[in-house]
């Protein structure tokens, strides 16, 4: 609850800052509309925004679950086999280095223009931070504990399960918090590549029609969504880190 209050305080502060920037720099409204204008646009289009936000929220939720599971599994696999790690990590980076935008035609070819391609896009984006952060945690178990586990005759599988994974949960938390922020962007990019619903679609539409205020209203909705997601994930990750 505390967190949520601060989140709203921050949202308010952002609004003030935003209005301040608009006043001070005199940036024209078609580049950066004032919060008041955006608020009006948001209110006028509230049904439209809500409908599209719901679509994006579903994509994000799905992607977050899938991406976390995939990322966690990958990290565990990589940590279990140093050779696999050395071979696979560069490949992972390869795939990450390719802007998803460039992969879009391939993805839509395989996954179509439905929800799947957006989820895949978001999964692609969050997969790497989750994998990377969790992997780092898995490989930083103090040597003394591993020595003990080995003299106890622990199997690698059980050592992973009982020692490395619990030890790396705080690091997984770090990755999850990043993922919470990236997943919505991933979904929006997915929508940009081809969609007929969702906040990303709405943004493009508003952009094409030079309705900058509607675009920023969608952006603001997206930002709030991300913020709530981050608050939720931080709670989960704090629980993971507390032992």
């Amino acid at each position: 609850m505390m967190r949520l209050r601060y989140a709203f305080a921050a949202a308010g502060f952002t609004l003030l800052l935003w209005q301040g920037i608009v006043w001070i720099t005199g940036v024209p409204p078609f580049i950066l509309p004032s919060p008041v204008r955006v608020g009006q646009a948001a209110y006028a289009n509230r049904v439209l925004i809500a409908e599209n936000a719901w679509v994006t929220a579903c994509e994000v939720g799905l992607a977050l679950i899938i991406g976390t599971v995939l990322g966690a599994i990958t990290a565990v696999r990589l940590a279990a086999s140093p050779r696999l790690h050395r071979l696979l990590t560069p490949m992972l980076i390869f795939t990450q280095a390719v802007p998803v935008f460039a992969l879009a035609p391939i993805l839509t070819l395989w996954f179509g223009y439905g929800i799947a391609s957006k989820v895949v896009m978001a999964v692609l984006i969050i997969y790497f931070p989750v994998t990377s952060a969790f992997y780092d945690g898995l490989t930083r178990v103090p040597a003394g504990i591993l020595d003990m586990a080995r003299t106890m005759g622990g199997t690698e599988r059980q050592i992973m399960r009982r020692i490395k994974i619990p030890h790396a949960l705080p690091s997984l938390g770090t990755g999850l918090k990043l993922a919470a922020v990236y997943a919505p962007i991933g979904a929006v990019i997915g929508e940009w590549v081809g969609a007929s619903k969702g906040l990303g679609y709405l943004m493009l539409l508003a952009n094409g029609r030079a309705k900058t205020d509607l675009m920023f209203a969608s952006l603001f909705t997206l930002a709030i969504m991300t913020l709530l997601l981050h608050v939720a994930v931080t709670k989960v990750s704090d629980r993971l880190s507390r032992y």
Partner: protein
Amino acid sequence: MQAPAIQLSGSYHIDGTCLFAPIDMTLPAGEWTCVLGRSGVGKSTILRLIAGVRCEGDFQGEITASDGLPLVGRVSVMAQSDLLLPWLSVLENTVLGARLRGEVPDLQRAGNLLEWVGLARHAGKKPDSLSGGMRQRTALARTLMEDRPVVLLDEPFSALDAGTRADMQDLAAGLLKDKTVLLVTHDPAEAVRLGHQIIVLTADAAQPWTPPSLPPIRDQYAPETVECQAQLLAHLRRAQ
């Protein structure tokens, strides 16, 4: 499984300097060997060598079991630091070995052990909410849970008050009867009370020290024990 005797001979270098010159020591089968020596002389290192754990330095020599079989899987170790896993409760830490081997832990025995080390009331607590001595006793319980023929204990009672310490010594001596035990300790009284064999480790040699003639566990106040203890202490002081 019959406990083997263990023979260690060799020298150990670390970062180019010699930690101990060729030394030679035997842990007799089924008996307690107590090792004493100055801080930093290499007691824990020898323990790690026998346990087969990765060491920074370079050991030249060999470690053999009297039955000719490798030691891997037959050794249980209690390290100098407690190495408790902070996310597991005392009970879970105690049964960690079985869990790591993928076996079903003997919770009955674990409960008994915790009872004996005086932690039954604290079985559900996390290590962070234990006192130093309680942590050490948890580590001891975890080591005793492992039913291995060779047991290596690195200052297992150092954080315990005199009363608890004597109790734990009795407990360990009882449970590790007929095992080959290496006990690293700083307390001559402890060595004299528990050791079938006492070894004083210096940079040059692993020098045996004759224990009292009675078998352990010895009465701490018996004249012979007191005498032996005083002489050992004097010897250790001289060895500086």
